[in-house]
């Protein structure tokens, strides 16, 4: 039996359907992520799980029991709020101690566990500060510590690492994972950071405008997006409108208007003539000088239009013959040579036939 289950949950605000017919099942000890653009209904779902809001339709079950009518304080879960909701009249330590006090833990245990939690989020030095005396990221860490310290069975995290720098965030991620392993907490993690979602989660649900578009394991989401939206939302992708020219059992010939023919593969039975999208990850594209390997398939010529230095990688925007701009990512594997090609350089791009994906919608 799933730890938490959402059955056809819908929530409306006036005429707006913030959550539409969402069904989910989260297992004990699972790290589950809700990923989606701003305003797609992630927080609304969390609020319903936590019990601050009730579904207009559908039901939420914990251990198979409906939660409807169970007040938030009786649900064995804690929430780390997107807006932190720190108690302004309590010190950092007081905030973190709160859930333990509520659980009636003995004084010295509370002191010990608060100390541990603050250590975890690197805030021992701020224990006696008040929320208005600490920085944004520090607030977020207090919220995190407050949510974690009680070791609930289920922890709802609403963009709870968003205000932290990469280093700290990574440490926190590691701590979260460790906690999960040790204590078996299940997480429902809301984030808009796909790298975070992909790195941490057992499963990720990608949402759009109140609906779940795809719920899957991270690498499958990346490599097998269900539709254009998911492909586009997760990671960088080149999306090319195409038409199926011919489809065999494995091989697929696509025509991109103005660009030419694209060779791909797809096990699904596709009809020639149907149109869809061809999705291609930038890191699967290779760029080279025009002169090189002119004989390859899926090879298109163009000019470097723009390049963006991203530290470990450089993003090239290459304008192809028909004006279509394709993005390619090149690792900066050679030190000191961040730029292989300069803006304006004539180049060619190319990819393997199994690099891209044909998407029907």
């Amino acid at each position, binding site marked *: 039996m799933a730890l938490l289950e959402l059955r056809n949950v819908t929530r409306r605000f006036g005429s707006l359907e913030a959550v539409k017919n969402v069904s989910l099942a989260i297992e004990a000890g699972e790290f589950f992520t809700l990923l989606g653009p701003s305003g797609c209904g992630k927080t609304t779902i969390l609020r319903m799980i936590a*019990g*601050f*809001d*009730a579904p207009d339709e559908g039901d939420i079950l914990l251990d198979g029991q409906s939660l409807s009518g169970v*007040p938030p304080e009786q649900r064995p879960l804690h929430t780390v709020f997107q807006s932190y909701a720190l108690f*302004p009249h309590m010190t950092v330590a007081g905030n973190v101690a709160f859930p333990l006090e509520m659980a009636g833990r003995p004084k010295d245990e509370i002191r010990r566990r608060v100390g541990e939690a603050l250590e975890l989020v690197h805030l021992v030095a701020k224990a006696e500060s008040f929320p208005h005396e600490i920085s944004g990221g520090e607030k977020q860490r207090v919220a995190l510590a407050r949510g974690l310290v009680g070791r609930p069975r289920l922890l709802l995290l609403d963009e709870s690492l968003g205000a932290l720098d990469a280093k700290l965030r990574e440490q926190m991620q590691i701590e979260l994972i460790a906690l999960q392993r040790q204590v078996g907490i299940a997480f429902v993690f809301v984030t808009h950071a796909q790298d975070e979602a992909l790195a941490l989660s057992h499963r990720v649900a990608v949402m759009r405008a109140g609906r779940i578009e795809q719920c899957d394991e991270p690498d499958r989401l990346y490599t097998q997006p269900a539709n254009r939206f998911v492909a586009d939302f997760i990671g960088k992708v080149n999306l090319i409108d195409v038409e199926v020219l011919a489809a065999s059992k494995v091989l697929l010939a696509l025509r991109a208007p103005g660009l030419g023919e694209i060779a791909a593969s797809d096990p699904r039975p596709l009809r020639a003539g149907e149109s869809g999208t061809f999705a291609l990850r930038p890191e699967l594209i290779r760029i080279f000088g025009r002169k090189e390997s002119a004989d390859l398939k899926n090879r298109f010529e163009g000019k470097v239009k723009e390049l963006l230095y991203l530290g470990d990688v450089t993003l090239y925007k290459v304008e192809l013959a028909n004006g279509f701009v394709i993005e390619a990512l090149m690792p900066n594997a050679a030190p000191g040579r961040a730029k292989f090609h300069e803006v304006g350089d004539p180049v060619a791009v190319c990819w393997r036939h199994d690099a891209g994906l044909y998407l029907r919608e």
Partner: protein
Amino acid sequence: MKSRGGQFWLWAASLAVYAFLYVPLAVVVLFSFNDSELNAQWVGFTTRWYAKLAADADMLHATANSLLIAVTASATATVLGTLAGVAMQRYRLRLLPTLALTPVAMPELLLGVSLLLFFRQVLDLTLGFVSILVAHITFSIGFVAVIVRARLAGMDESIFEAARDLGATPWAAFRRITLPLILPALIAGFLMAFTLSIDDFVITFFVAGVGVTTLPLQIYSMIKVAVTPEINAVSTLLMLLTLTVIATASRFAPDVLKGKA
């Protein structure tokens, strides 16, 4: 969401408190229709006290005076008290908080006598409308200031900063941001000042000049003999009038004052 039980008790307690506030009022209203001069026991229904009231020029004149003074004094006190309250909260002042609380803490009699002495012997002011007005403003400011301050305490400073940052002068920030946010305090402060003013006897007794009388003075002059139902009638009407005045005022108030967020 609130648990149902909690909600129930909240309502029950609140209704009980409203009842506490209104039970004596019900007596007042009821007895304004009592056909008995003694007015201690229900005798029979009559509206003659209202008729009598309608013909009582002194009483009506006093009522008009009282309303005029109450509206003017409470409006002024609300303005000054709001300034004081905001200033007290925003700047670490020493003098003003004490000054604002002093008239609240001073026994009414002392305030009345001292104001009278001050008006007559220092300012040589002829007692009358103005002296009453000033006295009422004086004792109301503290009430407004305290409540405004209670509203502001703990409010997120950053929105005031944001307003300034986006080009609002202190005045614009006050008008556009602070004022709407403390509006409930303003309304509450105004109501307190209004009722304090319209109900004040002791201080008014001292600072009222010849021939300027307010409703409480008028009522006190009658009450020594007996609380006739006419006074109940005027009290009843006064409440109705207050209700209408405030309801109308709120309808025609500028948008800022309507809490139109």
